């Protein structure tokens, strides 16, 4: 317990570390109420919300025997792989385009109108078109995930580059920095906090979009598990898959937070 409390103090924004004494207590209360409402009190029928036992059995089932075409490991790995791939490609292209637009007014004039036009389209609205283009396989999902993560990466990188302190730029210039040194030593580090803000938003968008895309149609993945469980009227499995998505989302966000702290040591001390 003492260790859990300490870990909670150490935790930073990103990973939801609700392991303070009070937080743990309220969590246990919720678990208890859940067990009571679905068990002895019989407030919610097993077809609407699972009991802890249903939840546990669904977990055992998908881990050992598999569900909707694969074991938990297969399904999770499939979804995780798509998110990571889409996220990495989207960050690279998004941060790249944001930097380009921030550094070159000409590029911004050229690209920004198109970007502003595409930007308000919700990523999920692309799903039908993506399916037409790429079918129900991975390509369509990667495309939609890429789009979802791309937009916040571009916007936040651009904002970060625009917000670079002019005086620091001048100071670097008068001490002899070339244009490429200005970009590497001033613009990028100065924009890094905003870039990471964009990446965090992108990552969340990736998970949202992935689950939605897999719900619409998929051969494997957590969304496929959710969809199948809904058709099978299996609330235990639905809840289990939801918890899996939550854990995956929190885990990847925590990884990104760790990366962020490594990338910006000056913000720690």
């Amino acid at each position, binding site marked *: 317990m003492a260790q859990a409390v300490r870990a909670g103090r150490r935790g930073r924004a990103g990973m939801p570390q609700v392991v303070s004494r009070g937080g743990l207590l309220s969590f246990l209360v919720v678990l208890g109420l859940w067990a009571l409402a679905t068990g002895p009190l019989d407030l919610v029928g097993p077809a609407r919300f699972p009991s802890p036992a249903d939840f546990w059995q669904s977990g055992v089932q998908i881990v050992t025997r598999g569900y909707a075409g694969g074991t938990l490991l297969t399904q999770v790995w499939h979804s995780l792989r798509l998110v990571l791939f889409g996220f990495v490609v989207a960050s690279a292209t998004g941060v790249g385009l944001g930097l380009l637009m921030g550094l070159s007014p000409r590029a911004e004039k050229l690209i920004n109108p198109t970007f502003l036009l595409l930007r308000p389209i919700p990523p999920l609205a692309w799903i039908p078109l993506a399916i037409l283009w790429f079918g129900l396989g991975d390509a369509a999902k990667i495309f939609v995930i890429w789009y979802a993560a791309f937009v916040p990466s571009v916007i936040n990188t651009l904002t970060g580059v625009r917000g670079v302190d002019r005086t620091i730029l001048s*100071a670097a*210039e008068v*001490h002899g920095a070339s244009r490429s040194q200005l970009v590497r030593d001033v613009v990028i580090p100065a924009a890094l906090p905003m870039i990471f803000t964009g990446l965090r938003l992108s990552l969340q968008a990736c998970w949202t979009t992935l689950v939605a895309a897999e719900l619409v149609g998929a051969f494997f993945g957590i969304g496929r598990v959710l969809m199948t469980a809904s058709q099978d009227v299996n609330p235990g499995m639905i809840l289990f898959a939801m918890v899996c998505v939550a854990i995956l989302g929190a885990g990847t966000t925590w990884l990104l937070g760790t990366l962020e702290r490594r990338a*910006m040591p000056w913000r720690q001390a």
Partner: protein
Amino acid sequence: MISPSTATSGPDIAFRKVSKVYGNAEGGFVALDKVDLTVSRHEFVAIVGPSGCGKTTLMRMAAGLDFPTSGDVLVRDRQVEGPGPDRAVVFQQFALMPWKTVRDNIGFGLKCRGAAPSEIKQVTDRYITMMRLQGHESAFPHQLSGGMQQRVAIARSYAVDPDVLLMDEPFGALDAQTRLVMQEELVQLSRVNPRTVVFITHSVEEAVFLADRIVVMGRNPGRIVEIIDVKSLRLSERWDELPIEEVMDLESFTHMRTRVWKLLKDTKRSTAA
């Protein structure tokens, strides 16, 4: 004017009929009106004047961060075309890179120039000692006090070994005590490392204590009102042999201070009218 003459004994900095007009020529705002000023080799010139008199614009022109509407700005007989490490600037807001350690900030100019790591280490070591920053080499700027941050900024400027140091109210953001310490340190530093310095300040005391000459500017239009020689007084009254608080108590010092104050007051009156 592009080619430097080799055996020049001319001024380090020369402003020749420098004007800066914002807006169109007719109804525009005249920030600087045909300013003529020369600064000799290793001279310390302080510029004082009310806000809007164009003193910062003048300094930015010498730095190559701003350009005149008409007239010439020459540094060592070369027309200023842009920033360069021969003219380092110390800014009021320090302008350190928050993501670089003290050592990397000081060594930044050398790194830009492509100096060898061993040379960077040697030079930064020297300035870390000189500016009493030992033990803070790996600290980030925000972990330091304002005075220490400005010492890092001054060290960064000295480290590129510039011909000309341009200081834009470098102590303006510091508290009064730190300011006194820094003024005294700057005097000591310029004794060890004589440089041509243009120093902009709002503080008349600071100008009188530090400068060889004081340029008093007026505004609307921005112009030079008077140039006062302080060096001969400093030498004859032996200011350099006394600590700063005693210098500031000397009659010769207070006299000079009052003289500059009066000039500034007159400038403000004449503009208000």
